[in-house]
């Protein structure tokens, strides 16, 4: 529901008379490249601040992996003496002050060290340091599920927009009709029912009706042979429940904000003018009103991405999906700080990239938006 900041008034001027390819060409020539370079440069301070915040947040709980590990060992009746704990801390670099640990971590992210303690201990190059719980390189663990996480998130995001935008347009052009109420209620229900309950109920129904609870993203057969074209259909079938569960929780917000914006736009004078001039209703709605109304939704794209990452965690745990959310949760619980930090950093980078994309899309939607100074 974010409003674009650069817009001065919501009354679109008459669109320039250019064909679409021409407009796209123009757009890319003018200031986009410059703008993207500027934004990419701005990534550096943003990511620096994010990394500080992430490291701080992850360090916030008392204790560290070693103390969590020792507590786990003690609960199994094994005694760990203080010397051993100190030795472990020294090996992992956990005995250093927090800021030193932070700088070492950042150093590791920027360039991979070959002469570190980890290298000597474990004989491998450590990318983004070492995951204590997995006993592997952090990047190794992250990489396992990164592709799938992005794929699943992308599918759910496409579903969200593909479903909610047409519904929003329909609801706004037929305000207070039966369809409007039905779509509102379904949207609200999707937002009102907590994800994990919906997932459990759908799993139960799926088991009752088809005899298969569709848990996890891959069948046994897929795990053995890998996902190919012939079993991709099965993979998509297993995506149905996650899509419904995670997707519907976000559609409500999109429907509500686009509907409200559309209602504002439909009442404006330019719409009346266009109608008086005899422009077909369809053109008015799609070309003028919708284009203006979609603006806050597009600028909220980064936020949607971030809430998808958070929202999918609980669902993924219930449905046993092989995506990053549950790994992050377990890493945070076990205070496996480098792994948790890496996953949060990766997600944050994706969100920041999403925000950049949304800003580019905004400029494309509304030609009056100029990101470089002047030219207003």
């Amino acid at each position, binding site marked *: *529901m*974010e409003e674009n900041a*650069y817009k001065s008034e919501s009354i679109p001027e008459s669109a320039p008379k250019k064909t679409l390819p021409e407009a796209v060409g123009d757009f890319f020539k003018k200031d986009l490249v410059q703008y993207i370079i500027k934004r990419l440069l701005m990534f550096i301070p*943003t990511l620096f601040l994010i990394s500080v915040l*992430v490291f701080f947040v992850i360090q916030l709980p008392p204790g560290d992996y070693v103390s969590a590990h020792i507590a786990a060992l003690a609960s199994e009746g094994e005694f760990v003496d203080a010397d051993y704990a100190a030795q472990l801390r020294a090996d992992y670099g956990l005995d250093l002050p927090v800021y030193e640990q932070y700088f070492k971590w950042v150093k590791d992210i920027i360039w991979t060290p070959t002469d570190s303690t980890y290298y000597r201990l474990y004989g491998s190059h450590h990318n983004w340091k070492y995951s204590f719980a997995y006993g592997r390189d952090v990047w190794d663990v992250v990489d396992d599920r990164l592709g799938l996480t992005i794929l699943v998130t992308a599918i759910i995001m496409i579903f969200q927009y593909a479903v909610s935008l047409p519904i929003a347009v329909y609801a706004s052009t037929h305000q207070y009709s039966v369809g409007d109420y039905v779509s509102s209620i379904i949207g609200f229900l999707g*937002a*009102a029912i907590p994800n994990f*309950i919906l997932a459990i109920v759908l799993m139960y129904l799926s088991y009752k009706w088809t005899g298969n609870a569709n848990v996890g993203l891959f069948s046994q057969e897929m795990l053995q042979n890998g996902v190919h074209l012939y079993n991709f259909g099965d993979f998509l079938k297993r995506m149905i429940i996650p899509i419904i569960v995670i997707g519907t929780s976000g559609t409500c917000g999109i429907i509500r904000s686009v509907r*409200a914006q559309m209602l504002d736009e439909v009442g404006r004078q330019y719409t009346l003018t266009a109608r008086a001039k005899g422009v077909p209703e369809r053109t008015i709605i799609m070309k003028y009103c919708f284009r203006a109304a979609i603006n806050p939704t597009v600028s909220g794209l980064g936020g949607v991405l971030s809430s998808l990452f958070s929202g999918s965690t609980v669902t993924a745990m219930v449905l046993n999906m092989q995506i990053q959310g549950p790994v992050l949760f377990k890493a945070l619980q076990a205070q496996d700080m480098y792994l948790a930090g890496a996953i949060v950093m990766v997600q944050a980078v994706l969100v920041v990239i999403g925000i950049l994309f949304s800003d580019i899309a905004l400029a494309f939607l509304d030609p009056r938006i100029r990101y470089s100074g002047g030219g207003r």
Partner: protein
Amino acid sequence: MWKKKQKSNEDYYLASQWTLMGRKLKKHKLAKLSMLILLILYLGALFADFLAPYSLDEFDALYKNSAPSKIHWTHEGEFIGPHVYKLEKTIDRTDFSVKITEDTSEYYKINFFVHGSEYKILGLIPCDIHLFGVSQGSNGGSGAKIMLFGTDALGRDIFSRILLGSRISLTIPFASAIISFFLGVTIGSISGYFGGGVDIVIQRIIEVIGAVPQIPLWMALSAAIPPGISTVKMYFYITIILSFINWTGMARVVRGKFLSLKNEDYVMAARLSGVSTWKIIWKHLVPGFMSYLIVSITLGIPGSIVGETSMSYLGLGIKSPATSWGVLLQEASSVTDVASNPHKLIPIIFVTITVLAFNFLGDGIRDAADPYK
């Protein structure tokens, strides 16, 4: 006749923005219904101790995971009014399976204003009267319970817990939404109104906070809050802290609106007449998009109600015996729970109704606040 019409016109033209909104809101049926429902829910939370037959820590091992109590009207073919039977545990000698059945030899009438566990009305006046409950059996027996919505795994009444849990589920999300509203409007308006370097710094901060996922924040915060304080208090702290994170969305929108509104003539006029910046922001600019702000508050509250349930699922929110709707739903966190005890899904009805009511109320207010309709 004419005079009357003139009078009503006068009323209309002289009415303040709020009066007009109130009038339009009264015409919105769904919003009115939602308001009524919310009023009932909040009254229920206020008088939860009185309405709930049992307190938070009462339990009965016999009633573990039992389905909602069946309310009977006739006993042995004779009408005697609403009553329940005591449950009875029998062990089948052939396969040693435990069966819970109703013991129909003795009936327990449902009485109103019965004595039960002690509580304080509005936290002040000690009292032990509950709206309804079962006391003595027809043959002087005791031990029967009335569980309108069934019980959880420890034999605690879900109906009572829903009522008592609503005190947390209906208030803390509200507080959190209000706090993030004020932070969002204040910081967003500063960013939009002053622009320049202030704007750039605030926007970067918003970007950074928005990019960090919520779950690590929750976990870190709940682990960092010192142990030993009550879980309700801890949850309250977390919610307050989270609302210090959630303001970013609101701030972005407010900033956008301010960027476009601050150059309007009326703002210039106010500035030239020497109105203070603070007053311009709150008296002249904020009312200009009040409809949006109210809607986002009414949408923010259900968001945090649902968020609370997810956090409870992860075991990060409140912990038993203190309760909230999210904690109650933890009992329904696996397929087997749902399949064998469908009554444990009842709290979801309350969550859904509350969220729907807030959303429709927000809708109604949006329509009412729209000055062009």
